[in-house]
């Protein structure tokens, strides 16, 4: 290779690098000019389920429209997001399903995350069946009626036992323990992540076949699929839901709690004096509100921003409360 060729390459590289630098500087310059509002940038985390998308985009619309904030939406899974809030990378999570272990670690011990109880939503996990099953087996309304009839739910992988479709590994659950404690002849089949579970039971429901599965409210699909909850033993003092905590088996022998869901904020954000914080702190809506917006997004494939706008315009009274007006 001749020296001339080499120097010409160097020149080209230098030219390209120079051009890139100029372009980068130009961009940085314009970006700096853009964010002028007092609110600055707020980072909300959207979780994978449709209800969370509804929360996030309604809050985003309100912050952008009424406070002039710039809202960034991140999509980080449930547990790592605590770490992200602790480091101030994410400002707020609007729906958290009582991750008690994380509350101990991040809220109480590290004090890096601020917990605000209740976002107005009531989360409840349970065992669900499609309503059409009750025509033939009205006794399935409670767990006692399932006893002896488990084989109705049998499937190729459960053999002679009934099949119980278990929940997403990331969700609070104690179904294996419940099945054992209640003496039911079910095989707990782990279908995997939420979309996988939805795929399994909707396929069976479309065929009008029997199916029993781990499910919860609020969930926009419930209205569409017409599901009924099977009544489990009543709750008692000290009764627990998260079987991964281990311990005495007997404490799991009860229905899942109906828990208000929580909001979480990064401590950095909560103490920053951002005008967005008090608004998000007051932010609150009901299961029905969320189901409606979630259905627009996931059921009708409406763009989340559009769905949020539609809801906000129709519910200004609620929004004004959040805004403190």
């Amino acid at each position: 290779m001749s020296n001339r060729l080499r120097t010409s390459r160097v020149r080209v590289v230098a030219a390209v690098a120079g051009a890139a630098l100029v372009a980068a500087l130009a961009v940085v310059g314009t970006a700096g000019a853009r964010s002028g509002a007092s609110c600055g940038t707020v980072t909300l985390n959207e979780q994978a389920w449709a209800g969370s998308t509804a929360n996030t985009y309604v809050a985003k619309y309100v912050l952008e429209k009424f406070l002039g904030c710039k809202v960034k939406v991140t999509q980080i899974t449930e547990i790592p997001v605590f770490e992200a809030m602790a480091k101030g990378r994410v400002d707020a999570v609007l729906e958290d399903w009582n991750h008690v272990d994380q509350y101990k670690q991040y809220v109480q011990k590290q004090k890096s995350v601020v917990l605000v109880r209740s976002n107005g939503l009531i989360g409840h996990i349970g065992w669900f069946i499609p309503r059409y099953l009750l025509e033939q087996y009205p006794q399935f309304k409670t767990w006692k009626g399932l006893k002896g009839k488990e084989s109705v739910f049998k499937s190729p992988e459960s053999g002679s036992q009934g099949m119980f479709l278990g929940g997403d590994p990331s969700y609070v659950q104690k179904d294996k323990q419940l099945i054992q404690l209640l003496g039911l002849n079910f095989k707990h089949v782990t279908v995997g992540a939420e979309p996988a579970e939805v795929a399994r039971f909707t396929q069976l429901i479309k065929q009008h076949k029997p199916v029993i599965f781990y499910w919860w409210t609020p969930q926009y699909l419930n209205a569409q699929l017409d599901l009924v909850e099977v009544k489990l033993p009543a709750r008692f003092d000290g009764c627990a839901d998260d079987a991964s905590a281990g311990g005495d088996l007997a404490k799991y022998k009860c229905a899942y709690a109906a828990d208000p869901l929580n909001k979480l904020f990064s401590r950095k954000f909560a103490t920053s004096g951002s005008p967005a914080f008090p608004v998000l702190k007051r932010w609150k809506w009901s299961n029905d509100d969320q189901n409606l917006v979630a259905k627009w997004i996931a059921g009708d494939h409406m763009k989340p921003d559009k769905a949020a706008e539609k809801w906000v315009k129709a519910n200004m009274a609620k929004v004004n409360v959040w805004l403190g007006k």
Partner: protein
Amino acid sequence: MTAATEYAPTAVRLEHRPWWRSRLTLSAAIVAAMVVCYLALDRDLSWPASLEWSALTRHLDDFQVWLSDQSNADHPNLIVRILNGISSGLDTLVGWLYDALTGLTWVGATALGTLVALRFGGLRAGTIMLGSFAVFGAMGLWEESMQTLSLMLAAVALSLALGMPLGVLAGRSDRFNSFVTPVLDAMQIVPAFAYLMPVVILFSVGPGAAVITTMIYAIPPAVRITALGIRGVAANTVEAAAALGSTRRQLLTKVQLPLARRMLLLSVNQTILFALSMVVIAGLIGGSGLGDAVTNGLYSNPALAVLAGAAIVVMAIALDRVTEAIANRTDPAQQHLDPTGRRWARLATLAATAGVGLAAGLGRALGAGDLYTRWTAQDWLLARVQSALDYIQDPATFLFRNVTNPIGNFLVQHMLQPLDTFLVETPWFVTFAGLVAIAFVLSGLRPALTTAAMLAVVGVVGEWQPAMDTFSQVLVATGIAVALGLALGVLAAESRAVSRVLRPVNDVLQTLPQLVYVIPFIYLFPVSFVPGLVASVLYAFPVVARLVERGVRDVAPHSVEAAAAFGATRSQVLLRVKIPLARDAIMLGINQGLIMVLAVVVIAGLVGSGALGYEVAQGLQRNEFGLGVVASLAILALGIALDRVTQGNRKRRRDV
């Protein structure tokens, strides 16, 4: 004893073995003995609890809590601050790349990609690049694609910057090579889900953490193929250069690196593909871009997930073909530029640079916008994909009622469940002894000892039963993948047409995120293990087919000619000459097929295969770090054990 000396005598001995002493017969006899034990002995003799180290999980959990407390303390220590610096540096780097891409406007970005490909890769490469940008725009996924592209550029560049020097080192030093190989194995087999949480604690979330996660998976091919290339330089060339008085440094820069050029470029190419297969995982910790579109689409808009998956495939194939074209065109061995040629080349470079500048300037002046947001075919495409999904999800169709559903049920009832019951319920010591014996028969003493050690690890960490569960599914998936891969590989070796069709199919199957197609498979095969099984088969068979094709095609032509001269028909040549002579490549295919199947264990666990994969996923998503690590260890140990069992007595090779 080295692998090479072990190889030759065994191969000779094999020719004289009577059929009842052949390795296959012996293995079958061992399996038969295991079945007898299974039938005769007590059931449910699982690994004894007294041999388990049950505190391990708790120690690991404590470690994670400690790590998090350290990193979120009010006054973090020096190491934490250094790590924070690294991650924010990486964030800035990815941010710069993204800003540069958007700063050029979409016109300029397209011009940059196309003209660089055109200048260095030729017309075909340029067209491919232009086409891929057009696809991103038409899909309405421009912003996501640019985010993913900037993430990938950073991750690939850093992986190569770290991996290639390590590869050179591994290529020149046997000691370093034997030290680094197991580390690379672990980086590739341990599922990303297991180390996502520590990565997040140390490097927070965002592009920086996503780059690091991607690098963990993309560095191994860079190191391995570079080392392979350096080692592949003929020893006599190196000796000749040394005899002429070259220093070690001159040897490297003037002899070894130039001669290993093609392998170095292959390592660039493979690093790109491996990095792109991490897009979805990176999305889970703030990588944003196409990965997010896939994950979120799964919950609220599956058609969009399919579209985003397709965009990832387009990006992978475009980068693959363009780097390949650049590698071929810029090969100095094929290109002797005279002064006019050089002048032309320089002019072309200038023209390309000017073209990019002009396009960017025009884009800015005409207000083309940073991101392409104009006309897209997204809605139309989504509607098409949705109608295909609706068809797949309709249980009343012929396809479901008469094809997929019965096949799924058959697989579960007659293959997976019996095998699962057999492996899980056979007393542990029988399975243990049986597998070690098979390893001994098939591969020799050392592999058998490694197998024993690895199975012991599986038991000690307390994962014996889920591991056997996973093992049964891995066996069935590998069986199907190998059968399919063998058939297609042999066909492709015999027919150019098949080979030409197979290549893009293989590329798509290797880069399309499994999460995209695995959900539709749940609708088609609604039985828990089967969707995971299908995903594993689809991921593994292309590798088997590729290796078998290469093996059969590379059979020395004189053997084939000799057989043909004796009047052998084409099928005789194939069955009696080519396939037996390609045995090594076929064994390697089986071996690699197994490893690929193991790589899908976590995804399979997420769609109903349960066992180890589910535990790994649970480890991340329920913050049971210890459980996730322990299950990953079991997957790694199972992987190494199976690798050794099927290694055969071929010379150990490290093809990627």
